[in-house]
């Protein structure tokens, strides 16, 4: 069953002062399908349209045209049904009541989803324990660390037991230990067959967690691919890393056909990026013939694919 189905989704904002007078398209004929139980990553630079998509899916923003469905419910026609089946977690510290305790915060949001009585309190207690906040349940939120607040955000997103969870850069502000715990949580959500739509700038996180990723830029889908296959989009052939490579061999590698780049460091470590499988084979043969024994190969990382397809924008944010 499809959890999220988006077709031709467009969100336009009125032209800004000083622009060319055309509407600004935050999403431009966007298509996306996320299957139930899938962990799906949305990757793209700032201003690419990821957050706009998340906000349309959780019904806080109306699309200009196109359709979006969550578990078969249209975000416009069946907004209340969508709200009951979707949980949202936006990054950052805001969005909690700092003067309330963690328990009071969760009780409040649970009540807004119709929970009450014993169900409400057992759900809140369970989530606080699961997020490692059981000891801080009765502490005011504004006394908590940023990482704790982020975990509380996630608990809030899960308070009504949603089937689909939207996580918009949820690990912002988390320390490495908390981020690791977050990844374990996502694995638990996968085991529970929940669907997760995750936007992140952390390529390692996306690579470790996601079944498929969609690369987004200028409000459009660049590509949707499984994490294991995404490397093939950038280039053919595995990357090669070798240690103890003589200078003459480095020069020979650079002259080989089918090689995109050869990066050599002062300590004799070399990284070879081929653009064809034949390039990989030739480079490996050359290294072995040169007596190099410490060699490893790996497919292109998601980060390389991202940088290859989107990275030309540098730090520019879409205007």
């Amino acid at each position, binding site marked *: 069953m499809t959890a999220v189905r988006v077709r031709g989704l467009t969100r336009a904002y009125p032209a800004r002062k000083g622009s060319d007078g055309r509407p600004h398209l935050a999403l431009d004929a966007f298509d996306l399908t996320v299957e139930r139980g899938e962990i799906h990553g949305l990757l793209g630079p700032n201003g690419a349209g990821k957050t706009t998509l998340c906000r349309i899916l959780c*019904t806080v923003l109306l699309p200009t045209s196109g359709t979006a469905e969550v578990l078969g419910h249209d975000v416009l026609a069946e907004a209340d049904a969508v709200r009951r089946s979707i949980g*949202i977690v936006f990054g950052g510290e*805001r969005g*909690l009541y700092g003067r*309330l305790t963690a328990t009071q915060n969760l*009780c*409040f949001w649970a009540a807004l989803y119709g929970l009450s009585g014993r169900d409400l309190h057992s759900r809140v207690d369970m989530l606080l324990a699961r997020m490692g906040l059981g000891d801080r349940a009765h502490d005011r939120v504004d006394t908590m660390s940023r990482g704790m607040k982020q975990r509380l955000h996630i608990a809030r997103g899960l308070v009504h037991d949603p089937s689909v969870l939207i996580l918009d850069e949820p690990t912002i502000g988390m320390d490495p230990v908390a981020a690791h715990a977050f990844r374990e949580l996502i694995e638990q959500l996968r085991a529970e067959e929940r669907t997760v739509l995750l936007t992140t700038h952390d390529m390692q996180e996306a690579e470790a967690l996601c079944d498929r990723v969609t690369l987004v830029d200028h409000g459009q889908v660049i590509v949707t691919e499984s994490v294991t296959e995404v490397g093939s989009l950038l280039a053919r052939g595995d990357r090669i890393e070798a240690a103890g490579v003589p200078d003459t061999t480095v020069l020979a590698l650079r002259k080989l056909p089918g090689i995109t780049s050869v990066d050599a460091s002062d300590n004799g470590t070399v990284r070879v990026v081929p653009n064809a499988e034949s390039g990989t084979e030739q480079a490996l043969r050359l290294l072995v013939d040169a007596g190099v024994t410490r060699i490893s190969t790996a497919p292109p990382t998601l980060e390389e694919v991202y940088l290859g397809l989107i990275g030309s924008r540098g730090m520019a944010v879409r205007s």
Partner: protein
Amino acid sequence: MKGAGVRFTAAAPALPALRPAVQAARVVRHSAAIAFADMRAVYTWKVWIFGWLGRMLAQVTFFTLLARTTGSEEHTAYIAVGNSVMTCALECMSVVASTTWERLSGTLVLLCAVPARPVWVFFGRSLQWPISGSGTSLIALLFLAPLFGVSWHPGQVPALVVLVPLTALTTYCFGLFLAAFVLNANGVRNIVSNVAYLLMMILCGVNIPVSQWPPAVQAVADILPLTHSLHAIRLVSDGAGASRVLGAAGLALLCGAGWLLGAYVAFNRFMARARGLGSADLF
């Protein structure tokens, strides 16, 4: 824990028709926790008594002394009662500002994404004002006004204990209606609340009897709950019959319910507009 989403079945009342009301009451109750947390953060007992209450009693004293220098004893008592009751109306206008705190705390966008109706959240999250305001007004009426010739006998006190919170709650509903519009214009929140309370002070019979205004102005005063609840309190003070008091209180209640209905519609429209414009993002 399997994600099936929440159904409205937990502790459901016997009559399905009552479910929305029960659900709304739950939302108000949990939202009120925010109100009381804000109250605790703003006031300690000492700060409330010597800061807020002292200031309000000084205001009532000022207007009443002004009246005593220019008018009769009867007029002085009239001003003392009017301004004592006005203190709770003034405090209830703080709902205009505290509603916008949702935008400042970044929770507004999340409130757009829940199935509950927003008005019940906003109704609950500022309830500290009518409660504190009721206390202020009752203290002013029962302990300050007698210094200016107002007398109460014990049999009148229960009526005041009902009518003052009624004044506070119905005026709070009026403030809630204004707050729904100010959510889109955060910069004018203090202007709106100050203009609203000054208008009430002028139009609702606090210092000037409503009957002295032209009919058009009286019509405006008639849709403000303070006009009727203050009239009910004056009737109690004058020793009028229960039916007249209840009639005036009923009109106040009706006005308050009207403003609450208006607030319900206004908050729904605000949310719909915010979704269309994307303005809920701008917090």
